[in-house]
């Protein structure tokens, strides 16, 4: 078969211009494949990072106990109080679970939190806020608070509070000024504004306050435990599996971000499907191009095929000559297209350094190896039909004897 490969190579190098054109055509198809992979992959990463990136990937919340069932004795009337919106349940043994959860593979950060509602008062101005108490030093474990800080610092401590830009503006607060925070439980604390953040999310910037966990314990009268544990993963796509693992390890109700995110998943799936279609069309174009070029070559080289057959070349030998041509075209076009794709993607900013106004290309998602492999396979498949046609050439009619 080494000799068949030599003949295949000779056929390709004899007509350099035609071969170059063919390889360029394949390379363009591969380039489109890689470009689409990088764009669709980058876009998916971008959407996920913008929508889910700042959220907890797995959340453990304390479950409120079911209200006791009361059976009314005959002749008595029972009054029932509906469950309030404020969560009173706590994860009393959170401290015990934290090291265990942190040791789970794929877990990047764990943030025990106390969450509740409250009112911020400054003078005559009052605003309802959602208060989150986080451990000092873990302010940016889930939400990248450090990254969103526009004034001051994200560092939380005793007597300090960090607010969103809109909330601070509503209360006419500036750094270092004091504000009164009253929890839903009625506990009041005087806190100093140490940082202002701006995420671009109106609900977050206009109604969210961060305090340290000890401050939250005081405000919500929770000397022990937390109301929830938020967990950030290295790979947010592994949330389902990791949540299951944590649930199995701890018995806690770990909920992945994907629960309740069906619309986002459907949108991402639809986008991925679009990418698959485009990439499939690119591959089909390559296959048709290679097949038609080799079919033409088969027709043009009929007399030579006849001579080879007369000289004792078997049908398999002829098949291999043409399949090898397809494989070589696929390989060279694939490598050239992959190189072109890589070079074309280089100027785009990396996923982490993405800037608004540019395409969210991800050079790491170019699927270079896959593109080359699929192209070679496609080109080989495309060459089978012409190769079989070549092997069936009748040497007598082809030579003209």
């Amino acid at each position, binding site marked *: 078969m080494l000799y068949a490969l030599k003949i295949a190579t000779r056929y390709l190098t*004899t007509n350099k211009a035609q071969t170059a054109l063919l390889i360029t055509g394949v390379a363009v198809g591969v380039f489109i494949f890689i470009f689409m992979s990088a764009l669709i992959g980058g876009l998916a990463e971008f959407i996920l990072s913008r929508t889910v990136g700042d959220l907890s990937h797995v959340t453990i919340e304390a479950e409120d106990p079911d209200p006791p069932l009361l059976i009314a004795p005959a002749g008595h009337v029972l009054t029932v109080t509906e469950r309030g919106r404020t969560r009173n349940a706590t994860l009393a043994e959170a401290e015990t679970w934290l090291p265990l959860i942190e040791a789970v593979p794929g877990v990047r950060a764990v943030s025990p939190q106390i969450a509740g509602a409250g009112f911020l008062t400054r003078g005559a101005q009052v605003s309802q806020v959602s208060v989150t108490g986080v451990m000092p030093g873990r302010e940016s474990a889930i939400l990248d608070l450090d990254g969103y800080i526009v004034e001051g610092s994200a560092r939380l401590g005793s007597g300090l509070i960090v607010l969103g830009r809109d909330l601070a503006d509503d209360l006419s607060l500036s750094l270092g000024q004091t504000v009164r925070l009253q929890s839903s439980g009625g506990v009041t604390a005087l806190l100093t504004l140490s940082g202002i953040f701006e995420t671009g999310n109106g609900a977050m910037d206009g109604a969210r306050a961060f305090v340290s966990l000890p401050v939250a314990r005081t405000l919500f009268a929770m000397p022990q435990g937390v109301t929830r544990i938020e967990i950030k993963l290295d790979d947010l796509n592994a949330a389902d599996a990791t949540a299951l693992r944590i649930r199995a390890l701890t018995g806690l109700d770990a909920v992945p971000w994907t629960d309740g995110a069906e619309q986002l998943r459907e949108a991402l799936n639809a986008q991925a499907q679009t990418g698959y279609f485009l990439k499939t069309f690119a591959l089909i174009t390559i296959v048709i191009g290679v097949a038609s070029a080799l079919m033409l070559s088969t027709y043009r080289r009929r007399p030579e095929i006849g001579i080879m057959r007369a*000289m*004792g070349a078997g049908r398999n030998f002829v098949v291999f000559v043409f399949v090898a041509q397809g494989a070589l075209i696929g390989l060279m076009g694939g490598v050239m297209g992959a190189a072109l794709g890589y070079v074309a993607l280089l100027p785009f900013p990396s996923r982490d350094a993405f800037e608004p106004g540019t395409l969210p290309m991800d050079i790491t998602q170019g699927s270079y190896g896959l593109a080359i492999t699929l192209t070679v396979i496609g080109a080989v498949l495309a060459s089978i039909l012409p190769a079989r046609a070549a092997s069936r050439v009748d*040497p007598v009619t082809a030579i003209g*004897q």
Partner: protein
Amino acid sequence: MSTLLQVRDLVMTYGTGEAATRVLRGLSLRLEAGEMAALLGPSGAGKSTLLTILGTLMKPTSGSYEMLGQDMISADDRALTDFRNAHIGFVFQFHNLLPDFTALENVIFPTAVREGRETPAARRRGRDLLVRMGLADRIDFPTANLSGGQKQRVAVARALMNGPELVLADEPTGNLDRASAMQVMDLIGEINREEGTTFLISTHDEKIAAACRRQIEVGDGVVTG
């Protein structure tokens, strides 16, 4: 001399129904090893068809064909291909060389295709044959740069490459001038004498036929003399 090949009652019909043309009509022939025979006859007599059948490139409609004791009619395509490669050489009227290859590459093709690669031994034999054909200075020339006579001598060298028992030549000098034609015939005669290779040469040329020790006349699909 031993019998190299024998055909009996060969019938070859092209087409079917009313369009059917019977080219061979029960032709029988025996060739002894080491013969140098000319196949004579008018155009359409069936000379080329007979050579094609003897070369195992085509099977007759009916009849028997044995070469070197093997039945060529019942053999499958793969067996015939291998047999052809090992035992039969061809020289065509229009040389039919591979245009994208050099003279040497053309000559060693039958061996390379059998071995799966161009072995040093094949290269040595190919060079020797080309030197013997008087083409020592054209060994690595692309065949496109050779004259008609030179191309035909390359074709003869290729036909001899695997040391075949039989070389079938269909009008090998039909496309050459007189000097080149005689040069090719001299080479063929020399190889026949020295190596005992059997040649069956189809020709219209009386002088070429006279250079052969046996003349076989074909007419109307049978051997007439």
